[in-house]
């Protein structure tokens, strides 16, 4: 019994040491699969939080440089294709339901056509992911964050994204 427990102890204690000792080529600190899964969940929760008052930002700041490259990628590329596709299908279903509902409920008239409805909210999603990424990168700081924000400043993003990027860079400079 004692032997087994001690073996578990040795293995568990050695995990962080092994992890810290290995760095992948991009300079990102190596995570175990469980840690990477948890980090991905934390990123996803923050990118789509409604009021963002449940510690979503703080969870990512705690992870710090480990998640900075993922957030830089989000700032550059927006939502993942699978996430965007899921939302596109949800929007299509919602729009078609609204049009059915509108037939008997004039107070619920939707002026937009289907294509514009879907595009409006998909664009909002993309902008929101970038705004959230810019915000947390400013809070994390460091070289990866600075480079990502400077590149975003040059990109042709929506005005609200640009405002968030500029605010993030200002914050970064004051750190």
């Amino acid at each position, binding site marked *: 019994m004692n032997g087994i427990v001690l073996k578990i102890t040795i293995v568990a204690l050695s995990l962080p040491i092994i992890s810290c000792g290995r760095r992948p080529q991009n300079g990102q600190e190596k995570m175990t699969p469980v840690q990477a899964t*948890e980090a991905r969940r934390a990123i996803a*929760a923050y990118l789509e939080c*409604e009021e963002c008052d449940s510690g979503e930002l703080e969870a990512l700041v705690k992870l710090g440089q480990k998640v900075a490259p993922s957030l830089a990628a989000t700032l550059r590329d927006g939502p993942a294709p699978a996430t965007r596709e899921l939302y596109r299908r949800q*929007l299509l279903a919602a729009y078609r339901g609204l049009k059915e509902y509108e037939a008997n409920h004039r*107070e619920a008239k939707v002026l937009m056509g289907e294509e514009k409805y879907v595009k409006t909210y998909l664009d909002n999603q993309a902008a929101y992911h970038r705004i959230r990424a810019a915000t947390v990168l400013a809070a994390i700081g460091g070289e990866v964050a600075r480079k990502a924000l400077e590149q975003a400043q040059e990109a042709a993003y929506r005005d609200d994204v640009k405002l968030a990027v500029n605010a993030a860079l200002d914050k970064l400079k004051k750190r």
Partner: protein
Amino acid sequence: MKQQSFAIYLAVIAVVVAGILPLSARPADIINNLCIDELIQSPGVINWIPVGCEVVDCCPGCPGAPIDWRIRVAGDPIESVTLKFEDLPAEMSGKLKLQGNAKWIDGSTLRIGKGEIVLSGFILDPAKAVPVAIPQLNIEKAFADRIKADADQNHPDSSADLGANDSGRVELTVEQVMGQVVVNESKLIYIVSSCSSPALPESDDRISLTGNTSSDNAVIVLDARRAGRCVKDEVQRTTGAVSVGSVLSNSDCNSNAAVFSDDNAMAFFTPVSVWSDPLGDLLTLDLAPMWQVPTTVWVMRGPFADTRDRVLADFARANQLYNKMNCGISFSAPVINDATADSDTPGLLNATCPDANLLWKRIGFTNGRLNIYYLNLSQGRGWWCEDNTILIGSGADNESLTHEFGHAFSLRHSDNIVGIGGNNLMIAGGGGRNYFTIGQCFRCNVEHNSTLNSNAIRTGPKRNCPDVNANPSCPKLAFDVTPR
């Protein structure tokens, strides 16, 4: 012994030390409440599972390997689950490897039996459409027969717990893994119910509805006394009148009736005093038109025409959801003000709740109504600031306004509440939020703190029913009824 205790203590410490990262909760399960007849006759599409990562680089330091699906199917009601893939290239489906109790029906349709299978080798081409799996349940005939028989025998006068045997639960879990990292995950829960009530003689006690605007199959939630017990949250369904067996005089039992119906206000009758011990009592419940919530919108983010169209789309969605979910609340045509050219707007475009005073003074505010400001709001998609004030940001989704209205009607976030799914409208984020529970609709209406009551929009009995309250005079927050 001491040595062993010390070793265990050391092991616990070690595991804690090894856990460098704080654990982040799994995403909430998606809950689908289904009627068995509808499920068999016209299953429809209600969920989608896209192939690919949830975040754009998959995970911090992800290996960039192909994606494998670990699929688990569980639950008595089903024989199997079918996944119909759309936009799955033929050359990819031919290369996918399958392990476990599953079989391709054709190049894009996979039938999976109960248990766990692995479908491995998805390599995505970013230039092509994202493949998406659409699940469909294949119900066991024996379950369908049993559930219908149970419903027919489920007499309300029986001492059996209503609902104990009249539903089944199916779980479909898909974990998408890259190497050993879970890069996307979906857990779909299907609660399958009979949704039909036994036909009882007209000589029984009865409930009759008047004013049922759309003659829909309204939900009646009854607290009353039956033989030897008080019943709480007993569900009856009718478009007009229904026999309810023998309801006895109230004695020490609560006696209420709440009615939830499309195109009508939620009606709450308390106390109900018509019940007597002999059969033949008639409870008549008059339904009124939906409550009309007056709103004023201040459009600060331009161009005005674009934002106005979004405002109307958001309101349409809110109207649809609060009605179809039987909350009985409507948002009459909002007064929409163009504040895009207001000289104070640029300085307040990123206002947050602590700036509400400035918004009221400089942009505008109408007393006694919900005031909604459409602005940039980098701190979230939307906020309920109390004091009849809602902020909607430029990144809001198509259900953010509906969610914030929920806060205005006293609801809190429903994350981590047993029995409430990740698709509930009061979840604190995500997409595809599409339902309120009956327990939530009850609170929107009767809770003292709901603006329906504080703005004197609604008349009728009120209750102290915060979300977490176990008050016996309120249904549980997760209490729900299918279909609506």
